[in-house]
């Protein structure tokens, strides 16, 4: 039954991963033990790589963090490819050609992702334009002159006499 739940309900799998993470503090070290490299640099490369690739089942987790079975399959596959001597780029291409750009946490710059990359700058530019226009208009607005009645009232207020309704307010 546990087997079934783990495999079938992705949300549950993520929940289990979270529980495991809380229970043992560092779930990542637990799964990494089985991947040994003779060259420590290759191990670091492997470690970085699975941290940058996204698990398709628990979508907000990297392959390094995910306890989903598919993530384990992919970690093993990446390990196998790296043991074969494939470079980092080759491994990334291998996964992208099968699962799409979605596996990358860092999406590539291309026509379909232009808005994703430059959208925020568009918003900043639009906001800056509105701010600039507002400040410009405020500067251009002439100081309004007081008319006779307002001038008289101003004098009255400055003289401390106030208007009759002012006393009724307090």
């Amino acid at each position, binding site marked *: 039954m546990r087997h079934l739940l783990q495999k079938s309900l992705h949300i549950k799998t993520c929940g289990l991963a979270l529980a495991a993470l809380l229970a043992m503090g560092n779930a990542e070290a637990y799964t990494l033990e089985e991947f040994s490299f003779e060259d420590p640099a290759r191990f670091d490369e492997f470690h970085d790589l699975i941290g940058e690739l996204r698990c398709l089942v628990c979508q907000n987790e990297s392959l390094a963090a995910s306890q989903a079975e*598919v993530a384990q399959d992919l970690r093993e596959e990446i390990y196998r490819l790296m043991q074969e001597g494939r470079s980092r780029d080759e491994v990334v291409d291998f996964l992208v050609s099968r699962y*799409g750009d979605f596996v990358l946490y860092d999406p590539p710059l291309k026509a379909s992702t232009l808005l994703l990359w430059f959208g925020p700058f568009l918003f900043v530019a639009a906001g800056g334009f509105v701010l600039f226009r507002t400040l410009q208009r405020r500067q251009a607005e002439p100081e309004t002159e007081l008319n006779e009645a307002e001038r008289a009232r101003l004098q009255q207020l400055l003289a401390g006499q106030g208007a009759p309704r002012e006393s009724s307010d307090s």
Partner: protein
Amino acid sequence: MNKSVARALIPLGIFLVLAALLFYGLQLDPRKVPSPLVGKPAPEFQLESLKEPGQMLDRSVLLGKVSLVNVWASWCPSCRQEHGELMRIARQSGVQIIGYNWKDSREAGLLMLRQYGDPYSLSLFDPDNRAGIDWGIYGAPETFVVDAEGIIRHKHIGPVTPEVWERDLRPLVERYQSGS
């Protein structure tokens, strides 16, 4: 309209556009990741037959006619849910459905076919996801439409319902059947 009233309505307009976009976003399912394999030849594979232990099947089983390749497993409730629809499709449309038993055990897989019926003209058996990575499989059920030349034309993620069959799969199957 008064100019200042029009100006005051701008934030409301922006809000409505944003709300519409976010509402649209709610309808999208982030689990449905588009497959880069669509339009490309189905990957090579060497998998044992589920029903005939020892018999090896490869990519050539896809050639010659349009097929649905249905990824399933006995542990997957959605697969059970779509099973009746697959039985109906196999019976009524006559399209070749190839079962892809994924990360399952042979006994459990065969038991499910005995209990609920077998819509598959043949069944591939991939207990340890050997070929599944090449297919970009990341869950069950998934269903591929593969044309007679072995080119993947569509990938459906999640159970096949009557609506999915009528709307997405059947038109494609018929198009590629008439084209070949």
